[in-house]
C-alpha cells in the first residue's frame, strides 16, 4: 500500500467506526474482557496501535476480523471510549467492501447448516461475513 | 373583546388591580395606542384587536413601581419580554397581574393600505373575527385575508403559548409559516460588498428618532448612554459622531442575548429599517455557537453572553 492508500484507509476506519484510536491508553481491559482473545492473532488492545502506526495491511489481513464475536464487552468496558470492537468491525467492513473480500459464500451454506439453525444465526453470519 | 373588557373592569372594580395597561382606540380605525386605565369609565375606550401589536411589557417597569397591582395585557410573544424583565429585576412580578390575551397574529396596516386607500373603517380584526377582514374606504369596500396582511414578525411566530400568566383570555394561534432565520441566511449568502451596500442603504435612512430604542423592552436602561445630560430638547442632539455612526450596531450588541426577538423595533421604525435583522443575527449566532437560547423563555436560564464553556469556539471561526 502506498502512504496515501494507508492514510485513506485509516481515515475510513475512523469514519466507519466513529472511534478515535488516539484515545487509547493501552490499559488492556478489552483484551482482558475478550471471549475470543485466544483465537485472535492481532489482539484487541493492539487494534488502536495498528491503526495509529498505519499498519493497515496487517490489520485487514488478520484473522481477528473473523474471530470477533461482536459481544460488545470491550465496547462496554473500555474506559477511554476507544471501543476496539468498533475498530475491528470497521476493518472488517474495509475488507468486505472490496470485491472478493467475503468470508462466507452462499454456496457454502447448505453444508454448514443443520435442522436447528435459527434464521437469526444465518442472517447474522451472512451479514457479518460478507457485504 | 367585550369579554376581555368586562373582565378587566371586574378586576378594577373588585380591587384586584389599581390600574390596567392595555390599548385604547386611536384616531384612526387602525392605530390603537398603549394606554393606562385607572377607572372603569376610562375603560370604555379600551380596545383589543388585530392592530394591537404594541408590546406592553416595557410599560410595566414604571407601572409596577406604583402602589397597588397593575393588570397588563400580554400576547404570547410579549410574555417573553416580560420574563426577561423579571430576570433583570426590572419589573416587580408581585405587583403585576398578567392577563394573557390570545393572539392570532397582528396586522400590518401598510400591507392593507397597499390595496386600500382612504380607509374609513375596518372590521373583523378581533380575536374571534373571521378569516377575512372588511376594509371600508371612500372608494368602496374591500376584503382581505387576515393571514395575508400579518406583520412580518408574525410569520416567524414563537408560538401560541404564554410564558407567564395569571389568567388567560382567548385562544392563540401559532402563525409561523416562514423559517425564522431565512432572511438572515439570505443576507449571509450575499458577497461582503453586497452586504455592506445593503446595510449602508438601510442605515442611511435613520433619522435618529429613537423610536426603536424607546419601544424596545430590552432597551430600558434608566439612563441611556446615547442621551447626554443636556437640558430638554438638546438631550436628543448628539454631540459625538461616534455614537451616531455606530448607534444601531451598539444597540444590537447592547441587547444581544437579552433580545426576545419581539420585532417591535422594526414595527415602529418610521423609515421602515428592518432593524430586527441585527438582533436576529445575534440570536442565530448564539443558537449556532452556544446552543439554542430563547431570551425570556426560562427566567432562570443564564444569558449566553454572561456564560461560557471551556470548549467555546474561537472568534472568527464559523461554528
Amino acid at each position: 500500500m502506498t502512504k496515501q492508500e494507508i492514510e485513506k484507509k485509516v481515515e475510513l476506519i475512523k469514519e466507519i467506526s466513529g472511534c478515535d484510536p488516539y484515545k487509547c491508553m493501552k490499559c488492556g481491559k478489552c483484551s482482558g474482557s475478550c471471549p475470543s482473545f485466544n483465537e485472535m492473532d492481532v489482539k484487541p488492545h493492539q487494534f488502536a496501535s495498528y491503526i495509529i502506526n498505519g499498519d493497515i495491511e496487517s490489520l485487514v489481513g488478520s484473522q481477528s476480523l473473523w474471530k470477533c464475536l461482536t459481544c460488545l464487552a470491550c465496547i462496554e468496558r473500555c474506559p477511554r471510549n476507544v471501543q476496539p470492537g468498533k475498530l475491528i468491525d470497521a476493518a472488517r467492513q474495509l475488507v468486505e467492501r472490496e470485491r472478493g473480500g467475503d468470508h462466507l459464500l452462499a454456496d457454502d451454506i447448505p453444508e454448514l447448516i443443520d435442522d436447528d439453525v435459527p434464521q437469526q444465526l444465518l442472517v447474522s453470519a451472512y451479514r457479518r461475513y460478507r457485504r | 373583546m367585550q369579554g376581555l373588557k368586562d373582565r378587566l373592569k371586574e378586576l378594577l372594580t373588585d380591587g384586584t388591580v389599581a390600574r390596567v395597561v392595555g390599548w385604547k382606540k386611536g384616531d384612526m380605525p387602525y392605530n390603537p395606542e398603549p394606554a393606562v386605565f385607572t377607572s372603569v369609565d376610562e375603560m370604555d375606550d379600551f380596545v383589543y384587536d388585530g392592530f394591537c401589536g404594541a408590546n406592553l411589557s416595557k410599560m410595566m417597569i414604571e407601572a409596577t413601581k406604583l402602589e397597588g397591582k397593575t393588570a397588563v395585557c400580554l400576547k404570547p410573544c410579549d410574555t417573553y419580554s416580560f420574563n426577561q424583565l423579571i430576570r433583570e429585576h426590572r419589573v416587580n412580578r408581585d405587583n403585576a397581574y398578567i392577563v394573557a390575551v390570545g393572539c392570532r397574529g397582528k396586522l400590518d396596516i401598510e400591507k392593507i393600505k397597499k390595496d386600500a386607500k382612504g380607509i374609513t373603517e375596518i372590521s373583523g380584526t378581533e380575536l374571534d373575527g373571521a378569516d377575512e377582514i372588511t376594509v371600508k374606504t371612500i372608494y368602496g369596500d374591500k376584503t382581505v385575508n387576515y393571514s395575508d396582511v400579518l406583520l412580518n414578525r408574525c410569520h416567524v411566530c414563537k408560538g401560541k403559548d404564554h410564558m407567564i400568566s395569571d389568567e388567560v383570555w382567548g385562544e392563540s394561534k401559532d402563525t409561523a409559516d416562514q423559517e425564522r432565520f431565512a432572511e438572515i441566511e439570505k443576507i449571509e449568502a450575499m458577497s461582503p460588498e453586497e452586504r455592506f451596500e445593503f446595510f449602508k442603504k438601510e442605515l442611511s435612512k435613520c433619522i435618529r428618532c429613537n423610536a426603536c430604542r424607546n419601544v424596545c423592552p430590552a432597551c430600558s436602561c434608566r439612563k441611556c448612554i446615547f442621551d447626554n445630560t443636556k437640558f430638554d430638547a438638546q438631550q436628543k442632539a448628539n454631540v459625538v459622531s461616534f455614537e451616531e455612526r455606530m448607534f444601531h450596531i451598539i444597540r444590537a450588541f447592547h441587547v444581544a442575548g437579552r433580545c426576545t426577538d419581539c420585532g417591535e423595533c422594526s414595527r415602529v421604525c418610521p423609515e421602515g429599517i428592518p432593524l430586527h435583522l441585527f438582533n436576529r443575527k445575534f440570536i442565530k449566532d448564539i443558537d449556532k455557537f452556544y446552543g439554542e437560547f430563547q431570551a425570556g423563555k426560562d427566567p432562570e436560564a443564564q444569558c449566553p453572553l454572561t456564560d461560557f464553556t471551556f470548549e467555546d469556539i474561537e472568534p472568527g471561526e464559523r461554528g
Partner: protein
Amino acid sequence: MKYSYYPGCTLKNKAADLDLYARKCAEILGFELEEINEWQCCGGVYPLGSDEIATKLSSVRALNDAKEHGQDLVTLCSACHHVLKRVNDDMKNVSDISDRANNYLALDEPYRGETKVLHFLEVLRDVIGFDELAKKVTNPLTGKKIGAYYGCLVLRPGKILEFDDPENPKIMEDFIRALGAEPVVFPYRNECCGAYTSLKEGGISQERTKLIFDSSNGFGADMLITACPLCMYNLNKSEADSKIPVYYFTELLAEALGAKEGNS
C-alpha cells in the same frame, strides 16, 4: 393495552415457541401484541458502518409503523431488540443517519425516533410490574433453581439499550422470582455464547457454552432461560458435561400462568 409487535424472522420459524407463549401470556396479563403489517427482517446484527443506511431501513419502517399506530413497539428476540433500539437511537440522535434515512424513505412525516421500543421483559417489569405478575401466577415454579442467561445483545451497549445494568443485570432474576422459582446468579450470565461463529467454526461456541454451563451448574442452577434464539441454539449444541436444559423465558412464563398445557 395494545402494543405494536415485531416478532422477527426466527420467531416465525425455529423459535415459534418463544412467540406463541408470549402472545398467550400477554393475553392473560391483559395486553395485546398487534403484529406489524409486512414487517421485514431487522438484519440480525446492527449495521456497523456509520455510513450504512440501507441496512437500517427495515428497522425504521417497523419503528415508523408503530409510530403511525401511536403504539410502543414490543419485541422478544434479543437480536431484534438490539437492532431496533440502536437504529431508533440513531434516528433520534444521529442527525446524519436520520436525515439520510428519511430522505430515502420519504415518509409522510419524517421519522425521528419517536417510537418507544420495549423488550417483552421490560413490559413485564415497567408496565405490568413483577409484583402484579406474581399475583397472576397460578402454577408457581416453586423449588426450581433457574439461571438467567442474558447473553450480549439484550444488554449491550447499556447506554443505548437501557435495558438493565449491563454488568450486573437483575431483570430476569426478578422475573424468575415472580414466577415462584429461585434465581441462580452466575457470573457468566452476560458472557458471549459464541454468537454467529458457530456457523463456520463451532469451536468457540463449544468453549463458551461449556464455561456458561460449568458456571451456572456450579452455582446450583437446574435449568437456564434465555430470550435469544441464537444463544438457545449454541447452548443446545453444547457438548459440555455440565449441560442443563435451556428454555425460552416465555415458555416458563406460560407454565407459571397455566397457559402451557393446552398448546404443548
